């Protein structure tokens, strides 16, 4: 760490790695934090939630980023909630469908239904867009619908959220699931996609914020049980209302009530 001391005592370097979903947000927050503490440098790297968790365990990173809750086999780590995000189903804007039931979605993803006609749409083949294993979004989706990944039969497997959106926007028969914030932002920009209602609830950041939307996930910062003081200070900053505007600007839902520091 750097020798020169800041007026409020914080100096040094912080390395943060992990989720590509969270990275743009943390980058923005880090920039603001650096401005307040000129002798602090925060390096944000990506590579996926899994890498964030792994790097924290290996002490390669001070803080990890994960776009999901920690699993039972990750109890050695501490998650710090940063924001919330929903996972919504999307179809092409030209698709007349507005809502699918839980059973219909399971049927579509497990290759029992192959035609939009069977679920009340126009007769057209369903193109199932699925995420690659290891992606947090996929885990949230599978857990919500109680599907085992090997049972899924898809036509396209995508990596990033925007990959899913561009795929659905380019193929009128496609269905996929992505971060709601991302989908909303793109829809506002005129990308021809549509978010489906889920369990009767509109898929939007507002319903995620209110807790009404059923399929949502936390965006977390991950540390070991004893993070260095600078890391703790940064996490505290990330959870403070000072950064709510940044959270919203990245189309996520800020945590309004006092955050739960432990998971």
């Amino acid at each position: 760490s750097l020798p020169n001391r800041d007026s409020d005592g914080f100096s040094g370097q912080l390395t943060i790695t992990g989720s590509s979903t969270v990275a743009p947000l943390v980058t923005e927050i880090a920039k603001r934090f650096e401005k307040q503490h000129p002798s602090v440098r925060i390096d944000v790297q990506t590579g996926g939630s899994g890498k964030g968790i792994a790097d924290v365990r290996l002490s390669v990173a001070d803080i990890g980023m994960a776009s999901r809750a920690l699993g039972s086999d990750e109890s050695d780590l501490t998650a710090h909630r940063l924001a919330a995000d929903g996972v919504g189903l999307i179809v092409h804007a030209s698709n007349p469908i507005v809502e699918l039931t839980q059973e219909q979605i399971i049927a579509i993803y497990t290759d029992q239904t192959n035609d939009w006609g069977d679920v009340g749409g126009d007769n057209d083949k369903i193109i199932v867009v699925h995420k690659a294993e290891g992606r947090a979004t996929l885990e949230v989706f599978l857990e919500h619908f109680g599907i085992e990944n090997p049972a899924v039969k898809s036509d396209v497997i995508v990596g990033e959220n925007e990959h899913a959106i561009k795929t659905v926007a380019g193929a009128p028969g496609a269905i996929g699931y992505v971060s709601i914030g991302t989908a909303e932002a793109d829809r506002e920009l005129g990308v021809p996609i549509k978010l489906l209602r889920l369990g009767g609830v509109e898929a939007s950041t507002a319903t995620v914020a209110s807790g009404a939307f059923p399929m949502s996930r936390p965006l977390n910062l991950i540390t070991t049980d004893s993070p260095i003081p600078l890391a703790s200070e940064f996490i505290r900053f990330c959870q403070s209302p000072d950064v709510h505007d940044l959270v919203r600007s990245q189309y996520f839902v800020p945590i309004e009530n006092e955050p739960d520091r432990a998971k």
Partner: protein
Amino acid sequence: MSRTVRSDWILTVLTRSLAIVSAAIILLILSFLLRESLPALRQLGIVRFVTDVSWHPLSGQFNFMPMVVATLVTSLGAIVIAAPLGIASAVFTHFYAPSKLAVWYRRLIELLAGIPSVVFGLWGLVVLAPIVANLGGSGQNLFTATVVLGLMVLPTVALLSDSAIASVPREWIQGAAALGMQRSAIVGQIVLPGAKRGIGSGIILALTRALGETMAVLMLAGNIVEMPTSLLSPGRTLNANIALELGYASSAHRSVLFVSGLMLMLVVATIVIAVSRRQRTTHDGE
């Protein structure tokens, strides 16, 4: 020993050491890959990569043959597209294009070589795939990936063929022309045979590049791990697989990914060595 000799000797030693450093990089990479793949090779053995039911690494199924096939199909397909177009491009700039156009054409090809694979991927994803989708499906399949991959490696073939053709002696071309050979015959019988080796190595380089491309293919091939049945079926290449799964892979799974990387390199090495053997024997035979 005199000064002159010493400077030559220094040159030899220096350049040879540099050559050894260059060559050693591949050994470094190989040993790194080997170290990382050793656990999988020890635990699972090689047979499981071929005999397992399918690729479900989290459920302990590690058959990556469908991905090997997809990799070969896209790479060879890319060469089938890039080789004729690339050679034709080189011939075009030398023998058919008006000289002004030739300069710009060559510049454009060089530009193509520098366009990031991400941009190719984006173009394929946003522009080409929706067009291919009219043939059914999402438009993300081996065909789309192959076409874009072909475009990406085209400059390699075109530029190396270009310089190979440029090194064919002028005298041969003038001599052939003076014998009343037409342009097409001069190109086909004198120039291309004369540039054969350079063009061949351009194609090999392009093939190895195609085998190594990751991002664009990841964005376009559909990434389903299944034995492809046609060009229009989606598929996942080994590179795309590494890029998709390495982020979260741990223990045996991670190690298997390195095995697939190692395998890819072995495929490349086999091609390269087979070709260099053949080239040598045909050369001796001449």
